[in-house]
């Protein structure tokens, strides 16, 4: 936590202290008290201490947890910006095999120009809704949105209009979170709600060939993703030549590195892996869920390989792990501590079926190319039920032990 101490600039602290009475009870801006509170405690550890009730003492508080997750997202974000820029230049030149590591700075700047406004909109709208809500309802502002606000742009295709990002963020914060009472109370992941909302509301802007590459200009240039191309295997006129054709177009290594078109933050399995290491090392993310998610995906992938009725089923199981949003979902979405299963056993089932259903939707559902987001959403819904039965089983086991004894 030492890095945060850098923030402890005395001047800022003094200024905040000076402003405090304005927001205190009876002050001029009393109504905005919670906004002040949120900003002040974001910068400094609050001076108040808890006065009653049982507490677990732990150095990690919510704000620090959120900060670590955002930190873990940085590699994916940086790489995402660069990758977006790359595919923009590919689309412009019409040359699929444009050298990847040329003009690095140009690509990065182009990507940043595309991506930063989305982040600004996502944070602006999300925090705006939250601030308004907290002031009406009179409850303190939580920091939960710090992570969601970063996740939302990262799971979007680059060409999605900003107003759609705004609408989706507002919907997700309001219906996904505020109606349940704010941070920590929601049952579905906020960022996934935003993405699912856009996906169902504006499908043409969320899938298809024209949304993955920034400022597509070349006429008739198909900017499909791996999943988009693989989807065409389900019909009798695939865009590329069978499974082999797809594997040649997107090699495993390229996909692992993230050098393929896709949503901004999700293409690079490597960047997600770096994030995962950080999350696991700090104990913020659940290793149990990540592992069982990957195993579930591999198991279902292998199962479909064995069945192999249509071409899509023959896509190698390991390939599923590095394309689309699988890695991103496993590391950042499925592990959301609020919406995942809470029990140790429950987490294993939750992860396994989350990964498995993701592959199932990809391979069997021609309507939705990307299954990961929907499968995690589905498991969010099922998590309380899983927990319920895990707890019931525990109770029963203990009762039995009691009887034997």
């Amino acid at each position, binding site marked *: 936590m030492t890095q945060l101490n850098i923030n402890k600039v005395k001047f800022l602290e003094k200024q905040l202290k000076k402003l405090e009475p304005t927001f205190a009870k009876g002050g001029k801006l009393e109504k905005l008290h919670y906004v002040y509170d949120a900003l002040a405690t974001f910068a400094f550890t609050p001076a108040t201490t808890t006065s009653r009730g049982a507490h677990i003492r732990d150095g990690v508080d919510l704000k620090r947890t959120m900060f670590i997750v955002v930190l873990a997202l940085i590699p994916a974000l940086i790489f995402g910006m660069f990758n977006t820029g790359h595919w923009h230049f590919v689309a412009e030149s019409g040359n699929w095999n444009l050298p990847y590591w040329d003009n690095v700075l140009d690509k990065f700047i182009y990507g940043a120009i595309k991506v930063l406004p989305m982040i600004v909109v996502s944070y602006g709208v999300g925090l705006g809704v939250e601030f308004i809500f907290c002031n009406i309802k009179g409850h303190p502002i939580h920091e939960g949105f710090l992570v969601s606000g970063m996740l939302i742009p990262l799971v979007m295709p680059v060409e999605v209009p900003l107003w*759609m990002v705004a609408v989706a963020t507002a919907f997700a914060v309001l*219906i996904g979170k505020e*109606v349940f009472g704010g941070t920590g109370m929601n049952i579905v992941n906020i960022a996934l709600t935003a993405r699912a*909302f856009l996906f*169902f*509301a*504006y*499908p*043409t*802007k969320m899938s298809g060939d024209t949304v993955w590459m920034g400022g597509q200009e070349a006429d008739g240039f198909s900017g499909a993703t791996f999943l988009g191309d693989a989807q065409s295997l389900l019909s009798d006129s695939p865009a590329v030549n069978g499974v082999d054709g797809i594997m040649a177009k997107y090699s495993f290594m390229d996909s692992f590195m993230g050098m393929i078109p896709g949503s901004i933050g999700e293409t690079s399995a490597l960047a997600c892996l770096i994030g995962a290491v950080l999350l696991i090392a700090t104990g913020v993310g659940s290793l149990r869920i990540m592992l069982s998610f990957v195993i579930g995906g591999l198991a279902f992938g292998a199962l479909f390989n064995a069945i192999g009725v249509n071409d899509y089923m023959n896509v190698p199981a390991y390939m599923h792990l590095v394309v689309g949003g699988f890695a991103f979902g496993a590391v950042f979405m499925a592990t959301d501590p609020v919406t995942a299963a809470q029990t140790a056993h429950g987490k294993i089932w939750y992860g396994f079926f989350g990964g498995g259903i993701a592959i199932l939707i990809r391979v069997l559902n021609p309507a939705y190319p990307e299954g990961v987001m929907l499968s995690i959403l589905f498991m969010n819904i099922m998590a309380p039920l899983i927990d319920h039965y895990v707890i019931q089983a525990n109770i029963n086991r203990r009762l039995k032990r009691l009887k034997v004894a």
Partner: protein
Amino acid sequence: MSEVAEKVKAPAEPLFSKKNRKLVSDPLSDNNPITIQVLGICSALAITVQVEQAVVMSAAVFFVLALGNVVISLLRNLIPGRIRIIVQLVVVASLVIIVNQVLMAFLPDVSAKLSVFVGLIITNCIIMGRFEAFAMGNKPWPSFMDAVGNATGYAIILIIVAVVRELLGSGSLYGIPILGSPIPVEGYPNGTGLFDMGYMNNNLMVLPPMALIVVGIIIWIQRSRNKNLIESH
């Protein structure tokens, strides 16, 4: 005995007495069948994609409920208690068959869109609920007023939901384009009106989940304005 009863009998109530008016006005908001009594949701939500369907559905429910309430009320002293549920079911089912046949004959296009949901009026809990709770114990005229109130309360919610969903989901109201047309024409590749400016229809509005969320928000607004309606849990 009878003489005494004659004397105590209150003067004939006017048709639109305060009590009768209350029968109509109560279910409109404070005792709304959908948002408060939680009845009749089954068939209500699926057909609210377009205003036209919602209007026809409301009219059908109004017809079945009003006539049914009156019939049950007229028969209330004749119906054997042991089979009263069956009798009520028979009355509803017959009335619904009439509605369905009439719709098929005179409004075939709407009838096709409503598909099985006309038949499901039979199990619309509002109707059986009103029969059992009101018509079995009251005279025909109050029963009719009660039906008017409940059917209107049902219609209001249905039509509000349908307006929201059709406007945001299809950009039109009652089939008339309001926000422009999303169909590309010469010179306007994205459609006309708002669509030309980059606006798009929200497909989620047309899909089932959104109907539930819209009703949830209506309940939220309604109960925020009237705190008495808030549930403890």
